[in-house]
């Protein structure tokens, strides 16, 4: 049986990869994918904890996270498409209209 600490290490690595991706990449799509990575790291912790503690709560939350991720993907992709149509770019550094 895989110890909980290993699960935590894997998920921490996954989260760190996602975080670095969000902070360093400029393309909206890649940032988006990195956010998914971070979400999945969190889901992994939930599921691992569920197994380690022997309760179903963590697995329940995993479904919630997936649902939220799906909704987020739908809304986020719609925004990216709308942005591309209007500005012909998905580079987030060029999206600073609200700055005064």
């Amino acid at each position, binding site marked *: 049986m895989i110890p909980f600490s290993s699960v935590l290490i894997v998920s921490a690595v996954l989260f760190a990869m996602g975080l670095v991706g*969000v*902070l*360093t990449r400029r393309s909206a799509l890649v*940032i988006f994918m990195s956010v998914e990575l971070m979400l999945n790291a969190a889901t992994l912790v939930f599921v691992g904890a569920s197994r380690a503690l022997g309760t179903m709560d963590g697995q329940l939350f995993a479904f919630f996270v997936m649902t939220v991720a799906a909704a987020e993907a739908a809304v986020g992709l719609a925004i990216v498409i709308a942005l591309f149509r209007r500005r012909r770019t998905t580079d*987030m*550094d060029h*999206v*600073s209209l609200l*700055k005064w």
Partner: protein
Amino acid sequence: MVIDRSLDFLWLIPVLPLVGFLVAGAGCLLRARAKSVVAVVACGSVALSFALSLLCVMALAGLPAHERSHVTTVGEWIGPLGLDWSFRLDPLSSVMILVVTGVGFLIHLYSVGYMAHEEGFWRYFAYLNLFMAMMLTLVLGASLPLLFVGWEGVGLCSYLLIGFFYTKSWCADAGRKAFLVNRIGDASFIIGMLWAWVLFGGTFDIAALIERAPAAAAASPGSVTAIALLLFGGAAGKSAQIPLYVWLPDAMAGPTPVSALIHAATMVTAGVYMVCRLSPIYVLAPDAMFVVAVVGAATALLAALIAMAQDDIKKVLAYSTISQLGYMFMAAGAGAFTASIFHLTTHAFFKALLFLGSGAVIHALHGEQDMKKMGGLKSALPRTFLCFSAGWIAIAGVPLTAGFFSKDEILYKAFLHSPLLWAAGLVGALMTAIYMTRLMGLTFFGVSRRAAHGDHGSAPHEPPATMMIPLMVLAALALTAGFVGLPAPIGALFGGHGESPFAAWLAPVFHAPEAAIAAPHPEGHSLELLLMALSSLVALFGIAAGLRIWVTRPEIADRIAVRLGAFYVAVREKLYVDELYDRFIVKPWYALSRGMGRFDTGAVDGVVNGVGAIMLTSGHVMKLFHSGYVRSYAIAYVIGAAVIVWYLL
């Protein structure tokens, strides 16, 4: 029938001129041109008002003497204060409405001719009718606030009419000066009125105030004195007494009929009327009465002195008006309210006549007001001269004219009160005779000095009939009106006994207050006859001296002027009172205002602008954190989350 019912329509007396004002005002706004229409409407409304006043007074005379006080309430005004639109007709207000509507009508008629060639004919009559409505409200108002509505209304009309030729800056300035100086008095009046409300147990009704005054005076005599003085402060502003008289000479910037109506016959007597109306309160405050008498006497003397050295014909008459108003206050202060109102009435006639006569002279000379450039008009304007002479001998106090009887009444009552007041009055009477004779001498007698001063305009001509008729009527009144108030000794000669018809008519109003402070009355008539003879001599001496100085030997006048030197110059320059006010009140006031202005732009605006500047600066600083790059926000987010997690762990 008609007469009995007329008292129910008492409220129409002020409303009729108000309707005239609305019609003329609407015509003015619509730029109407037909002058005859407004002339008929304006004169007609005042004539109707006069007719109704006559009917009402006749109805009042039909009542028994102690019931001669009729109140008509038109409707509620300010419910919580118990104030109604109530008009009271009693012997005092009946005298006033007859004077106001009667003289007012004559002056309206005169104005039709006088203003015929002026711009703003409609505007003029709109203001004049509004003035009549307000003056009648003042006189008939049964409560102090309603009286005050009229009080302020006539002040407004005075301001509008002084500045009637508003394109000339000095006319507009004179209007503003009149308004501002009056405001000082009005502020004092308001304070006195409100204090009376508090002290007399929450009533503004004049009859109720008078009823409650004795109890209040017994409880706190100091407060009643203060109220009387504060109200007199208002009267000093409106009736041009020291120290607030400075606006009246400047008010001559208005058209001459306005000077006659507002600044001689009616509005400026409002203060005298108010003091007499509240006479039962004033007699409870002897100190206030003393102040009224002294201020009146001082004003009478000072203004008469200044009048002796003025060259502008209207300025002489203006100072003369101030001086005569001083006489009225002196009488009121001495407790002779009947004499005060009697002089008010006769003065309204002869001073209106003098002003209208001077208007005819100015009209004939195409606007010339400087007497140094007149002279010899007697032959050019014979009828005007005759009418003017009636006013001249009346104001100078030549025996048997109206002014003689009323002034003598005042002097006699003043003598009983204090010989010092009488002496001041007698000196004033002498000066009155002299300066009026000087005015006549420079204007009508001698030879014309027009050509010498470069005026080669067309020859002077007599005024048209609309101007001549009022002059004649007023001249007749100035000569004969005194007979309604014949003093007791002369009345006795004609088989009368006791008081004159005028005094008897006013007795229901003035009997109680006059009895309250009456000086001991000597037996017999010898003292009164002696004083009368003395003042007749003084008047005749003044006229004779004036005729000698300014008519037969004009060079004497110049010699006197040189002999008096600086004093003469000071009197000619109105004793520098305007300059003193300018130096010690106007200039410091401006300095204070400028200081306040700097405080406003510096401190107050500084705080407001400072708050804005702080917001702006902090915004500029905060802006630096908003780079617009999504990644920088994300980093801030991560750091924030890390800090919170670290803190929680």
